[in-house]
């Protein structure tokens, strides 16, 4: 199985389409969406329709905090994020909102745990931003592999000696060997709102035949997405972030 991992799409249609095309070219046979289809971007409806189509054909999709916010409270979100959620609620159909609401918080299958944030308490949306957090999340997941998002950066944590995890900032395009006896937790990076100063969309591919994990970056027309954000009246900062990748 060649599994493509997409996290934090954030209603960015151009970025999602670019990553899906890239993954297909790399012979991905299965897709997993790691939460936050909604929030920030101008195309929540189109993104949800694409993902719903894939889920209908067997893809995995878990809920993120922005997806939950569409249905419920927004107290955890900053002003521009809250403004985007309010705007998106208005443009989404009932069916699209129901799709978001119906996504599970966690999916476990075949030794893999899919979750948006930390698996310790998925509904608390804790950031996995240190080796210690990664160890806790991987332990709570209880699977050899945990794939998540939420942090908007690509990162890999691998267990070394005595279950202690080693943090590694991956180099895009370099396949990393994945040994069966090592526990690993990967942050796939953000498809729709990368924040590491590189404006290219981020996703990852886990190849279970070659036993490798490869992080990818895909340049897409982020200026077109930024123009859409400005045209739709969403906060200017959201357009600016996409142009800079910050």
């Amino acid at each position, binding site marked *: 199985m060649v599994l493509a991992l997409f996290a934090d799409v954030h209603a960015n249609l151009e970025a999602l389409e670019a990553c899906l095309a890239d993954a297909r070219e790399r012979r991905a046979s299965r897709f997993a969406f790691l939460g936050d289809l909604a929030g920030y971007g101008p195309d929540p409806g189109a993104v949800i329709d694409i993902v719903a189509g894939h889920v209908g054909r067997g893809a995995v999709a878990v809920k993120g905090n922005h997806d939950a916010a569409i249905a419920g409270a927004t107290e955890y979100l900053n002003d521009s994020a809250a403004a985007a959620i309010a705007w998106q609620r208005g443009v989404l159909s009932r069916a699209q909102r129901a799709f978001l609401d119906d996504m599970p918080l966690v999916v476990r299958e075949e030794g893999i745990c899919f979750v948006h944030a930390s698996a310790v308490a998925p509904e608390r949306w804790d950031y996995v931003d240190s080796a210690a957090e990664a160890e806790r999340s991987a332990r709570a997941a209880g699977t050899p592999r945990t794939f998540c998002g939420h942090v908007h950066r690509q990162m890999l944590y*691998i267990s*070394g*000696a005595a279950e*202690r995890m080693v943090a*590694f900032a*991956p180099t895009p395009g370099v396949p*990393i060997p994945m040994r*069966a*006896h*090592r526990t690993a937790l990967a942050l796939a990076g953000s498809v729709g709102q990368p924040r590491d100063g590189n404006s290219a969309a981020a996703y990852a591919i886990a190849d279970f035949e070659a036993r490798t994990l490869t992080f990818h970056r895909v340049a897409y027309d982020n200026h077109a997405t930024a123009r859409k954000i400005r045209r739709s009246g969403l906060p200017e900062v959201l357009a600016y972030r996409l142009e800079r990748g910050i």
Partner: protein
Amino acid sequence: MVIDGFTVGECLHKGAMGWLYEVTGRGNPFRMLMKVPRLGEATLSAETLLAFETEAMILPRLAGAHVPRYVATGDITTAPYLVLERVDGASLDRREAARLAPADVARIGAAIADALHSVHGQNVIHLDLKPDNVIVRADAAAVLLDFALSHHRHLPDLLAQERRYAAGSAPYISPEQVRGSRTDARSDLFSLGVILYELATGKLPFGAPLTLAGLRDRLWLDPAPPRIANGDTPPWLQEVILRSLEVSPAARYQSAAHLAFDLRHPEQVVLTARAAKVQRKSLAAQAASWWRARDIGTLPGGAKEEPGSAPVVMVAVDTTHPDDPRQPELQRVTRRILSLSREFRLICVSVVAARIGMPRGDEEGTQVEHRIRLRHWIEPLEIEADRVSMHVLEAADASSALVEFARRNNVDLIVLGAPAPDERALAWWRSVASSVTANAPCSVHVVRRPAASAAPAIDEDQAASRAAD
């Protein structure tokens, strides 16, 4: 016994880390070894496994004449093994027991530095360089063995947290490794400095400490200058060795290629106070160093520098035609290229026609004359003496002389002049520049004098169709 198509033969070595077997099979035309980690003993196994995995991960990504060829790895959970080329030749420790002549130290040292340069260029830092991990092949090239403690820039470092274990071999490891750093390629240059010291004097500069306190000595201890142990050590060799053994990585050579270069061109080594040292620092000065070492949390360095951040640039200067109108442009471009990097080395080369049958004295006269012209050419660039060297090559074929010199000295970029675009097309194909560009082992920057005022180019087809109107 046959494992995955390999016939396992004689056990060659039983070590603390694992076993080495001779293997055959799978139709490989070279001799092979199988490494099997020694697992199962509670205290050793976790670390042994990490080291085994590290080598199994890194070796397949290394290529070239300076590493054993990778053949296969077994499934780590069921049959952990690593099959690799069995390199012919003796490891350095068995061959070189006593002290060597300076020329031999330099030859072996330069070969190891070449190997390090090749490995560093492939994003790997060895981190356990010592004589038993070096084999010198019959063709004098050095091969590095044992990447079990190595670091790859683009792969997770499983040993990053295993400080105590991953520190390498006590006599050879760098001060920053004692502190837990695993990401500085200059650590390997320190270890090479220890090897050079050992080859030159028959002694180890820091002994073979058995305790952490003993290891920490090298954070401040000033090794006895090689000349104390071997009075025949020439100043240039002492300069190279003590520069390699500097506590701060920033004070060492910044690239293995630079170190190899100095070992190959002793006459070009710029001597500093290091070369003349005949005793250690005073007790008071050593105490001050010790006090400073206590305070430093982590040593400077440890930066994840891109390979090639300390390039060797070679500029070909035509000293036979010093008034060539391209010279100022060549100087401008060279200055611009050097401004892009702090840690460059510049090699200025002039090729003069070899003249057969010339009396010996005249030959030297030619050398001196062209060397003076080279120095005059380089002067306006205001480069520190220890970053630049000058070479006059006598050869019939300038382009192959340049290419060969670049290859031997790990040059990253050749800068040279070319015929102007307004000269006839044939001029380019006949030029040294075209031949060097075609055959160089590295990038080539071709410099042209800008055309005075380019006449608008007329497409021949267009001209023809216009004529037909």
